């Protein structure tokens, strides 16, 4: 059949009209001279909606497929959000590092010491309105002046916010990064492309594996003109890890199986609740907050 441009355009316009909710008669009414030719074409095309598969079949299929998609969402977004979070994190880290560099450069040579009230960054507390919570991932980066000894819990609540708290006098900023471990090299771990130096004697260093979600509290150090984050405290976010202070032995619980019972010195109350149906470890007086 030879294609008439006018008829072709009219046919197209009629399809648009039908898709816009008009009736066949209304659509054809726009092209009275061609209506006789257009009508059988539209009627032929309109068989497509008629051959749709029944809704009951579609609903059943949707129910069967939904778990697969949900599983993909959970698997992917368990770590997937880190990509976008990391951008925010890196921006804040860079800003923080820049402020530190500025502080250091403004100090006298013999004043490589914590910032004072007159030289401290003028950051104000600004909860980010653009970062929203998710069920599967959180990230906290906090700049605070409270220098805590190793092993001391920080007064920080885990929340998906990026805060900058005005430093207190004479205390270096403390940085908290939480995220998946991307790389382990000797005594360094990498999170969000940020290299973090870990005390080589820290027994947790041997317990960390790539992919673990860890929270690192530390501060910046400058080494050979490179700014590094030096870990002060490392906490595993999603799994329980215990270290025997005497032997340095490490025990990990991945929170999913019972195949790896804890040694007597580990509180491991989570494992015991899950696998033994019991409560706390009578051999340990430590509190287990898992």
């Amino acid at each position, binding site marked *: 059949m030879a294609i008439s441009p006018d008829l072709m355009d009219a046919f197209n316009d009629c399809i648009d009209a039908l898709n816009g909710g008009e009736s066949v008669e209304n659509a054809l009414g726009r092209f009275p001279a061609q209506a006789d030719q257009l009508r059988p074409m539209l009627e032929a095309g309109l068989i*497509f909606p008629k051959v749709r598969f029944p809704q009951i*079949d579609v609903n059943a*299929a949707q129910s069967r497929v939904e778990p697969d998609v949900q599983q993909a969402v959970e698997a992917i977004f368990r770590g997937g959000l880190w990509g976008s979070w990391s951008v925010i994190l890196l921006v804040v880290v860079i800003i923080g590092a820049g402020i530190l560099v500025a502080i250091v450069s403004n100090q006298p040579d013999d004043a490589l010491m914590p910032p004072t009230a007159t030289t401290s960054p003028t950051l104000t507390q600004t909860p980010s309105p653009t970062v929203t919570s998710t069920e599967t991932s959180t990230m906290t980066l906090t700049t605070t002046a409270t220098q805590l000894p190793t092993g001391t819990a920080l007064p920080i609540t885990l929340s998906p916010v990026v805060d900058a708290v005005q430093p207190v006098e004479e205390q270096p900023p403390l940085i908290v990064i939480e995220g998946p471990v991307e790389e382990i090299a000797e005594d360094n771990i990498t999170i969000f492309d940020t290299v973090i130096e870990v005390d080589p004697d820290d027994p947790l260093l041997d317990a960390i594996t790539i992919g673990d979600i860890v929270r690192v509290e530390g501060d910046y150090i400058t080494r050979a003109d490179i700014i590094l984050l030096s870990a002060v405290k490392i906490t595993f976010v999603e799994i329980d890890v215990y270290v025997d202070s005497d032997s340095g032995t490490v025990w990990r619980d991945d929170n999913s199986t019972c195949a790896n019972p804890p040694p007597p010195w580990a509180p491991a109350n989570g494992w015991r609740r899950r696998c033994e149906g019991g409560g706390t470890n009578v051999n340990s007086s430590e509190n287990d907050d898992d």
Partner: protein
Amino acid sequence: MIVLVLPDISVDDERLERAQHGDQEAIADIYRSYFDPIYQFVRLRVGDAQLAEDLTSDVFVKFVKALKNDKAPHTSLRGWIFAVARNVIYDQYGKEPELPVETLDQWLTTDVDTNPEVQAIRTISIERARQAISLLAPSHQEVLMLRFDQQLSLQETAEIMNKKVNAIKALQFRAVNTLRQLLSDPEIDDQTGVE
């Protein structure tokens, strides 16, 4: 006629933006909104119900992965997702898939209208229509499905099929006239082996 309601584009864009930020409820909304049209599109092309489910699942998993990799669109979700569905079908069958003949048997049992008279009319109509559709070239099936069933615009259809707008205009014209010939062909039943 069953009227298919595709998500409003502005609602789509808003959901998509939330999905880009990992909002799982937004992803679920998109899934619920698009499952029906994507499944219909895929199943009409491939015939087999189980395969249609698997391929539709692939489409949405690809969507989720694209969100993670920041490769999902920021606008025009419907065009993008139909294009993915089309690619998934081609990955399965190659560029010129043939609808499996045995699916015609399945098609014959899909009408659930309880009115005997309507049932009879619709059964005949659906049989003949599906037989005729099965004999169309894949590109003809596709353009008519997208325009008449999925009610996509000429521009969206062109983007999905990777053709120019004028080419789609001509293609849909040729396709519908081929379909008319098939529908009026008295030997169509013999060709498909059904009744």
